[in-house]
């Protein structure tokens, strides 16, 4: 008898709970998830409220934008395994390509869906050094010196680090006029000078700033300047080399998810908003290089001129890069081995 009563009570309780939660979810605002790369937290914390306001003014609806941050390959893997992301804002196009190849989460022509090859902003690899630049690091060549210790994340797990590796290669390609033996020697020396390989961009920042590892941190120009702003212009200096890699930050709507959730319109509008002057202004204030001509002018002083070389122009397609360099047993692994010897 007691058991029967208990079951009746618990069934009642469960039903009430269900009804309450359903009522809550019905009245809750629409929600989209922006799955992004590691070091873009502060950026979207600033942009998202602006978009919420813009959307409210435009349609009168409430929208809530959730964020997820991790290494961009890890994020892509998460989406492949079921993370319901409405939009992705990554730092490499390969991670969006894989969303198309392995399960058709995005359409094959995602690059054409938004201006500038679906890149609202771009950046490059720059250096962060200790105040006063005690080791006198001026350009890529200095990174191969035996008395210089470097910090940047693991190229196997971080898109940020892959750009660093490619940028070093690009520099060497120009400096040694395509002599592959010399290029490999240079990149190998650079890899050998690394003190610690963290899994992501922020991990590397922590190692350099909090744990005082290394003489120079190699990361996106945006992150370099952000660290300087955050931790004090009196502690660190920025060094922008004369030549570096063009790092485009592509964005895409995850079609399969938005179609199922019914958030296609707001997701597309969210990404379009990143091209609007208001958002471009925020991006520039976070030290990302932008395409909007008018906003560019106001921020011109904080972006030194340098030669930006695209990955495709030196290495061919991103697929070639991954197969030749970053895959197991590829050039990266060989050079790491060389560096140990």
């Amino acid at each position: 008898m007691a058991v029967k009563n208990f079951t009746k009570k618990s069934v009642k309780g469960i039903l009430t709970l269900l009804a309450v939660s359903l009522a809550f979810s019905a009245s809750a605002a629409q929600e989209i998830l922006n799955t992004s790369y590691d070091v873009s937290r502060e950026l979207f914390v600033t942009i998202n409220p602006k978009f919420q306001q813009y959307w409210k003014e435009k349609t009168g609806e409430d929208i809530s934008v959730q964020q997820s941050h991790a290494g961009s390959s890890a994020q892509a893997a998460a989406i492949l395994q079921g993370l319901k992301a409405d939009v992705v804002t990554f730092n490499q196009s390969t991670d969006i390509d894989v969303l198309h190849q392995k399960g058709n989460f995005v359409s094959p022509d995602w690059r054409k869906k938004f201006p500038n090859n679906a890149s609202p902003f771009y950046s490059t690899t720059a250096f962060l050094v200790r105040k006063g630049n005690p080791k006198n690091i001026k350009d890529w060549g200095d990174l191969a010196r035996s008395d210089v210790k470097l910090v940047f994340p693991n190229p196997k797990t971080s898109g940020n680090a892959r750009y660093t590796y490619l940028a070093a290669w690009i520099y060497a390609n120009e400096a040694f006029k395509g002599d592959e033996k010399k290029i490999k020697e240079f990149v190998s020396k650079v890899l050998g000078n690394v003190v610690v390989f963290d899994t992501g961009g922020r991990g590397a920042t922590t190692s350099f700033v909090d744990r005082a590892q290394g003489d120079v941190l190699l990361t996106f120009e945006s992150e370099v300047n952000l660290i300087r702003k955050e931790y004090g212009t009196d502690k660190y200096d920025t060094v922008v080399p004369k030549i570096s890699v063009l790092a485009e930050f592509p964005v895409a709507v995850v079609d399969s998810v938005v179609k199922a959730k019914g958030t296609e319109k707001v997701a597309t509008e969210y990404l379009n908003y990143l091209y609007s002057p208001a958002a471009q202004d925020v991006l520039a204030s976070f030290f990302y290089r932008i395409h909007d001509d008018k906003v560019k002018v106001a921020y011109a002083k904080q972006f030194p001129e340098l030669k930006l070389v695209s990955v495709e122009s030196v290495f061919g397609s991103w697929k070639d890069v991954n197969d030749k360099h970053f895959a197991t047993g590829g050039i990266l692994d060989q050079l790491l081995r060389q560096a140990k010897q």
Partner: protein
Amino acid sequence: MLVTKKSLRVLPGFTLSLGLGVFYLSLVVLLPAITLVLQSLQISWDEFVFYITDPRLLSSFRVTFLAAGIATVLNLFLGLLLAWILVRYQFPGKKLVDTLIDLPFALPTAVAGLTLSALFAQNGWVGQLLVPFDIKISYTFIGIILAMVFTSIPFVVRTLQPVLEDLSPEFEEAAETLGAKKRQIFLRIILPHISPALMIGVALSFVRSLGEFGAVIFIAGNMPYETEVVSLMIFTYIGEYNYPAAAAVAMLILITSLLLLLAVQLLQNYYGKRHSRR
């Protein structure tokens, strides 16, 4: 016939609990293990050999097994010492220390790794004391051992504690009256008694250390060929969307762990028979 065919069980509901137990075990242990095996079977033998003979992976095996081995030896002595103190001595704050032993279990391993790396970095509280001696802990091989010791020591302590508590004092007292020295009492009477539990604790500690990811990667340095562990290699393969390779490597670790635990079980049985024959 008055004799019933149904066998009498001492435990009521034995068949049901056995069934539920096996079902749960299958869900939690067997299903993931089978999935792992199926995933790893997706690569051809040649590909498998290619990955297994990759020098970077082989180095990571060397680093992981060596660090786990050293950490386990350390845990053997430290764990035994800790368990002994907790069982044999009374002191203020004993309950607190006893609870703290479970801290590595309760703490997310990433938090453990972060705090250890902060503590032992050259500008950390402990790390800066070691700088004059030119000893580096964070971002070196020693850091890996430290992380492994931290996360695996509860295994040794917790498996030893009940056995030590159970140890009735009469054997030791008898030995003392017969003139045995303290060292002889420990080696001849106490150690054989606790060695099965000790072996299991040590084996669990080793197996746990093999697979430790979160605590290790923050303090390790992750330099390929030097301080890169197998769990990071698996993570890397997954990052390359190379699930079969990741599963293959994971399966190797799994098989090693299972073989080790099996060996310990067999040794225990052997010891158990020896003991009971007396």
